[in-house]
């Protein structure tokens, strides 16, 4: 069963599509797939500890790995120490790594 890497680039406070990505991640996980969510560009704006983001919290409540692009975090002044629990800062290599492992990568 192939894994799914969902890449979310949009500000979750601006785009309802970001919530749909979270829903898709949860559904894929429920179907038994390996799933990771990679947040990039304005997609990282939800990972500050204390940010109100219901959909991402639901994802964090599962076994889905949630990664935040370290470059995007630095650009936006979000320190790794200020990330909410369960979110890991990660290099863009994480995307390439999973693609090379044959995961399906989906950009939103």
């Amino acid at each position: 069963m192939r894994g799914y890497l969902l890449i979310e680039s949009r500000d979750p406070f601006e785009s309802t599509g970001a919530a749909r990505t979270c829903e898709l991640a949860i559904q894929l996980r429920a179907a038994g797939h390996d799933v990771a969510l990679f947040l990039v560009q304005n997609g990282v704006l939800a990972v500050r500890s204390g940010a109100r983001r219901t959909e991402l919290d639901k994802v964090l409540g599962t076994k889905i790995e949630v990664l935040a692009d370290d470059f995007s975090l630095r650009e936006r002044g979000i320190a790794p120490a200020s990330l909410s629990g369960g979110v890991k800062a990660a290099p863009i290599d994480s995307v390439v790594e999973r693609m090379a492992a044959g995961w399906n990568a989906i950009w939103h």
Partner: protein
Amino acid sequence: MATKHTLTFVLMDAPFESARTTTAFRLLHAALDRGYDVNVFAYEGAVALSFAKQAQHPNAVHGRDVAQEDHPLSKNWIAALMAHARTRGADLKWVNCGLCVDERGVGEAIEGARRGSPADCWKMAQQSTATLVIPTK
């Protein structure tokens, strides 16, 4: 010995517009850094990324001439990625959708970027370990 992978990236954004272009180039660099072969199929506005006639400009607002402004050009980034590929023993294939090129009049591409068709995109995807499509909004 590490497995030789081929990854395909499908780009849609025109240059000078979106952070997606920067992210896409970072992905290409990361893949090439690992020695993976990389295919790029550029369509719609992204066919202008490799347009050879892109030119730097001065910034009158800030009082900077062309050299001082040193405005980044996507064609130069692509050329740098192609050079990086050679140092890593990797292959970077860059194909522009011909229909999209004609629509925009950007037929003069830098060396190493060639004209193709959506059929090339399909072949690239077929021959790759994975494909990532980065669309515009």
